[in-house]
């Protein structure tokens, strides 16, 4: 039963609008591919490494095909064709290309069906690795168990993967359930993924496959020691969404930031590019059993949390439909929201409670990702610690899924070792002390809380209707989300978008979409 007395007919309407919105975009998505998608195909076929000037081989090979006009066929075709022609493995092929010894488009071109058969066989092999990783995760969870929800989600962000490991292990021992390695500033705008272990970064650490591997190992170790599986999180946002999703699938990441609109709004990435990329990235996430975290919280770090609350809900509905289209089930949808109202607002807590409870009721199976106060955090660390306490209180009262712990030093620096310990202590105390408060209380009929939730839902239904009518891309162009305006052709990465040829082929979509 709804504690908020929500009208679920409205919720159904909202979902219907969102589906129309997402399906409309899906038409565009289905007709295009991108350099990132193709680099991902290449990675999924087993290609990795860098050339002698540190260019990642997936970039080398995709750029070459693109420059020569072959991208619309899809890399799977060119690699498959080369496998037939040269008898080499994809990795050997890539190395040969990088060495300038092989020109894929100069090879004799085999019949598409034949190529598809060869490449699908290789793809199945690789997909099995990912399926196995998923089984490994299940086995760990079975054997070691996990912390209760809300999971305690902690970030590390030193820039140095080895220092990150120390901090992550400390956090795990203190009680963390999820460790997110924050990315260095600017990585999301790189049109390639750096290679190897890294020890330098600004406000975060490069997302590289080697860094994933190092952290995965460290968390498995500490998980064994403390008897609790520790989830690893990283970001598949930015210009390399699907590539990083693939890397995450190979290295058994458990959680990945992945939002259909975030790159557009907050990184000024071209909309076509991001929308196409997100589709493939979510197919991979879905298949790998990765929980995605969407970025609705970001709206309220820019726009006002009271006035713009309905944009969060709207975006959650849209993200949900995009995820469903990519075969990602509700259980893996860590839809984002946040506690970002001005602390000076009288009864602000009641409104936050309304919003959190509303998200809970509307997405009952989603492991909601709840973000802490950041915008109104100040250098007053003591007050900040109290703001985080109320945030934790809302979370336990509304049964959130993943609690991104607030840091008392949010306005000052990326977390110190002790900051994390204090945050964990704060959350654990609140979660235990108030454990069953949520199920013990009811909200007054037509009171402040119920009304607020109903109002936000109404506004969201209205907004979705409008978007349904004018289309998502036009709505974004008008600044409906986070007051940021972007157009179909503005933003970074448009040059990496290509219309598919009729013969375009990507074996992984079929192998991974919705399957396990």
């Amino acid at each position, binding site marked *: 039963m709804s504690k908020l007395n929500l009208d679920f007919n409205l919720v159904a309407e909202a979902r219907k609008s969102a589906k129309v919105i997402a399906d409309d975009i899906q038409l565009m998505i289905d007709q295009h591919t991108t350099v990132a998608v193709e680099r991902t195909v290449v990675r999924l076929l087993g290609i990795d490494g860098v050339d002698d000037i540190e260019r990642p081989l997936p970039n080398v090979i995709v750029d070459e095909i693109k420059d020569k006009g072959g991208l619309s066929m899809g890399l799977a075709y060119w690699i498959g064709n080369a496998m037939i022609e040269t008898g080499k493995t994809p990795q050997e092929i890539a190395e040969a290309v990088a060495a300038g010894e092989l020109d894929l488009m100069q090879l004799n071109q085999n019949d598409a069906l034949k190529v598809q058969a060869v490449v699908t066989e290789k793809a199945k092999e690789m997909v099995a690795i990912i399926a196995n990783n998923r089984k490994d995760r299940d086995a760990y969870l079975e054997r070691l168990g996990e912390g209760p929800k809300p999971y305690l989600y902690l970030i590390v962000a030193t*820039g140095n993967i080895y220092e990150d490991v*120390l901090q992550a*292990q*400390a*956090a*795990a*021992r*203190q009680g963390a359930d999820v460790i997110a390695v924050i990315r260095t*500033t*600017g990585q999301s*705008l790189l049109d390639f993924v750096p290679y190897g272990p890294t020890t330098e970064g*600004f*406000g975060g650490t490069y997302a590289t496959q080697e860094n994933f591997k190092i952290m995965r190992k460290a968390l498995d170790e500490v998980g064994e020691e403390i008897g609790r599986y520790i989830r690893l999180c990283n970001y598949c946002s930015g210009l390399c969404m699907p590539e990083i999703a693939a890397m995450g699938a190979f290295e058994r990441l458990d959680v990945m930031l992945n939002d259909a609109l975030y790159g557009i709004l*907050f*990184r*000024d990435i071209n909309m076509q590019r991001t929308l196409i990329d997100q589709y493939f990235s979510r197919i991979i996430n879905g298949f790998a059993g990765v929980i995605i975290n969407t970025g609705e919280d970001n709206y309220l*770090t*820019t726009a006002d949390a009271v006035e713009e609350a309905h944009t969060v809900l709207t975006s959650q509905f849209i993200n949900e439909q995009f995820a469903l289209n990519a075969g990602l089930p509700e259980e893996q949808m860590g839809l984002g929201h946040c506690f970002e109202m001005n602390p000076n607002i009288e009864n602000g807590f009641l409104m936050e409670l309304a919003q959190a409870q509303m998200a809970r009721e509307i997405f009952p199976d989603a492991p909601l990702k709840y973000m802490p106060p950041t*915008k109104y955090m100040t250098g007053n660390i003591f007050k900040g610690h109290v703001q985080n306490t109320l945030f934790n209180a809302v979370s336990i009262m509304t049964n959130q899924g993943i609690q991104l712990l607030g840091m008392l030093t949010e*306005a000052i*620096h*990326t977390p*110190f*070792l*002790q900051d994390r*310990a204090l945050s964990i202590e704060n959350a654990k105390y609140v979660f235990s002390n108030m454990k069953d408060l949520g199920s013990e209380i009811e909200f007054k009929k037509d009171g402040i809380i119920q009304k607020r939730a109903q109002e936000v839902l109404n506004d969201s239904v209205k907004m979705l209707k409008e978007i349904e009518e004018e289309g998502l891309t036009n709505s974004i162009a008008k600044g409906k989300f986070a007051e940021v305006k972007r157009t179909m052709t503005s933003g970074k990465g448009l040059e990496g978008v290509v219309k598919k040829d009729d013969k375009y082929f990507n074996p992984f979509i079929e192998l991974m979409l919705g399957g396990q």
Partner: protein
Amino acid sequence: MSSQVDLTKVKPYGDTLNDGRMQFSFTLPVPFGDEADEAAKQLLIKMGIEEPSIVYSEDLGVGYTFFTAYGKCQHTVDYSSIEVPKVDVEIMDKYGVEDFIKEHIKRDVVIVGACTGTDAHTVGIDAIMNMKGFDGHYGLERYHGIEAINMGSQVPNEELIAKAIELNADAIVVSQVVTQKDVHILNLTNMIELIEAEGLRDKIILICGGPRINHELAKELGYDAGFGPKTYAEHVASFVVNQIVDRNMI
């Protein structure tokens, strides 16, 4: 009577004048235990803290220990001799600025701004420049007599300067929020170098702002002014219009 503060020898105050009381928290990379507490105490003593008291220590799980401590600081500071450089202009409100422009400048003032480098934090520069403003204070875009162009975030210094040249701007305003590894200093310094290389330094008013910026730092780096937290559009506007008159840029 409660005793008088000697401003030439100021000491921290806990609950009695000159008791020197301070609170500390920090981590040492040593294992939890009595020896760790002792190490923490010794550190505080080296800092000039008498009677350091470790009131809490906690094992952080990786052989490191977190401490909270109190103690009595023995150092004093001569407050009476402190002088802090400040933006030296009388702050007018929006209407004041608008009247000032009408009366003294008699043309539109052009200000271009951005959050530069890899920094993507737009909220601060938006607060100063956009219509809506911040905290009930309208932004520059809403000022009659000011043409304000906000280029947004992650704008390379070169692009910002090019825009200023294109529009014959009176002032460039730069926001820097990310300060890790002093990336803001690098970025702000680079800006000055480019401006000077263009021979523009005297022809343009150069302002920076952000949560870790202050006027002193800005001056050191070669800017005309720097603004920190709680800045509103009227601060920037008042400074710019006065500079235009003072520097005879009319």
